């Protein structure tokens, strides 16, 4: 195998690069403005209520955080599992992972009721809380992936690459298990009371992270006018197909389990049949756009070598994944908790027994989109400053 050279990524003219960065900067500024508006007025200006306590910002944040740990997979395959084709992609994998996590965390923190008390979250830990564990898992992820990148880039510490790679791999599994467990251990809510949430989030991260990776890799090599071989891309594509199938399998296992349990028939009926927007998001968003279309694009012989099909499949995975998290986070809260089994709520001073309506507002969306912009900015700057991308990825 010929020696691999990495170079800073220059995409076209400086004007193009700087205007791209400026655009991202504007999107981030709008998001920060939206966060200020929501914090200044209080959360009543959002679509969130005392019934739907986690709204669109959480969907964006969880989506980005889950994708972040998945984006690191390519590096793990390269250095932990010894996949030579993946190894040159390791640096970018680490950079993208850090970027996505930073974007997701920014959204999560700015949606807190008291983001100014972040220091409290960093110094006061209740170790029975999965959130507290996540604070440690998320900050640790930055540190470990940072060191991992260092061992990939600096030849003098390259001998530690495999060890650090192992640590990063286990850390990322723990991180997504932690994120999934937020929903797995909520015993009171029927949509969330399922241990399968943790492994399902891990496999979701594989899928979304790889989709993010593929789409941004193709874009970077087009903008940087560099060679990206079909063989390597086909490998990534096939891997994405396996992950999409696995997410589908876990979704099936989750719903079949719930369908067997009489107590959970209500929530299943809500998500699968008569939940209105959530039912549509599940079938059209998650299943059709997020599973069927990408599987068709990936495995249909008609698109075997089509780069556009691979890109489109990745975008479809991301759109479907977003809907999947929306259905889990918002759909699960919209369905009423069953406080009084066997009884019907005739009247209540606090919406007991009612399906809650949630309409996301523009500021919530602006904050969420700013999270994606933060991730892309970090990637754009990181790839320009560091030697992240191989000069060529021809086969």
């Amino acid at each position: 195998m010929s020696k691999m050279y990495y170079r800073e990524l220059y995409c076209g003219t400086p004007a193009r690069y700087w205007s791209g960065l400026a655009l991202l900067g504007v999107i981030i500024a709008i998001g920060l403005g939206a966060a200020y508006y929501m914090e200044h007025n209080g959360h009543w200006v959002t679509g969130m209520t005392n019934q739907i306590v986690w709204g669109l910002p959480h969907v964006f944040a969880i989506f980005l955080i889950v994708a972040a740990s998945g984006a690191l997979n390519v590096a793990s395959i390269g250095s932990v599992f010894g996949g030579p084709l993946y190894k040159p992609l390791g640096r970018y994998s680490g950079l993208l992972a850090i970027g996505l996590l930073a974007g997701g965390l920014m959204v999560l923190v700015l949606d807190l009721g008291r983001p100014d008390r972040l220091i409290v979250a960093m110094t006061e830990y209740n170790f029975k809380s999965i959130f507290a564990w996540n604070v440690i898992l998320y900050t640790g992820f930055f540190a470990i992936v940072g060191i991992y990148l260092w061992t990939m880039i600096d030849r003098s510490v390259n001998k530690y690459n495999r060890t650090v790679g192992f640590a990063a791999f286990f850390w990322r599994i723990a991180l997504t298990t932690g994120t999934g467990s937020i929903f797995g251990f909520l015993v009171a809510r029927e949509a969330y009371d399922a241990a399968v949430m943790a492994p399902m989030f891990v496999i979701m991260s594989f899928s979304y992270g790889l989709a993010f990776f593929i789409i941004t890799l193709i874009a970077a090599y087009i903008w940087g006018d560099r060679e990206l071989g079909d063989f390597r891309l086909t490998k990534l594509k096939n891997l994405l197909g396996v992950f999409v199938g696995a997410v589908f399998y876990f979704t099936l296992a989750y719903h079949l389990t719930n369908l067997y349990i009489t107590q959970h028939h209500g929530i299943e009926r809500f998500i699968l049949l008569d939940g209105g927007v959530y039912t549509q998001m599940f079938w059209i968003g998650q299943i059709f756009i997020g599973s069927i279309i990408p599987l068709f694009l990936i495995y249909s012989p008609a698109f075997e070598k089509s780069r556009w099909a691979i890109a489109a499949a990745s975008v479809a995975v991301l759109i479907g994944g977003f809907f999947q998290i929306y259905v889990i986070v918002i759909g699960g809260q919209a369905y009423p908790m069953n406080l009084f089994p066997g009884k019907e709520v005739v009247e209540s001073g606090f919406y007991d027994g009612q399906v809650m309506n949630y309409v996301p507002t523009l500021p919530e969306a602006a904050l969420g989109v700013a999270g994606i912009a933060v991730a892309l900015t970090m990637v754009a700057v990181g790839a320009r400053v560091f030697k992240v991308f191989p000069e060529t990825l021809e086969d």
Partner: protein
Amino acid sequence: MSNKSDQPNMDRRKMIGGAIAATGAMTIAPGVILHAASVSDEASAGADAKHRWGMLIDSNKCADGCSACVDACNTEHGLKGHGRPATDAVWIRPVKLKDKQTGRENRLVMMCQHCEHPPCVDVCPTNASFKRVDGIVLVDRHRCIGCRYCMMACPYKARSFIHEALTEQSVNAPRGKGCVESCTLCVHRVDDGVMQTACQEACSKEGHDAILFGDLNDPNSEISKTLKSTNSVQIRADLELNTGVRYLNL
């Protein structure tokens, strides 16, 4: 301009290495300086572990159309609505139920159930949600970061998030925008030795006597005697949270 040389720039590497080390130290340090002091001990100052405060709600006595307890709670704690019921704070709420099989109707009030094993305390990342040694579950408003995880975890929907700025607060219950709160079991009264909650007082004044507050640990208290001689239930007893609030005739 672009560095086209293949030689690595060692100065830059050192700078990057230093930056990574500094960032690492900054992220890990807070985790190392852990505050091991038990929060509940600190916050329970004044509370007496001999007691476990609780309530018994008699569903048969809870009168249709009455909102005396809700009004009293709102006045006592300075809870004022902004005309936006979906985001206004609710500490106590009436619920009317109908048995799906028999058609029997019940009315009761729901509030924080002051669990022995409160899920809100389990999930709170910063120990802001805590249980006093006398069983009262509270939120430390100085520690709450407003993550709302407790609201996701509470099986009773007992908690409210403060969605907007507050004015003219009651001295009985300091509150704050961006934090979560719920029924305090009138802890300010308990700590002053007044053994009657605002809701119970109002309910009795109306002549309904549907709410009984007292010490579950004292076998001679009225609440303990009533609990011993009647068939009370906990809401969602299947979760085994051992609630401090019990219900009769449900």
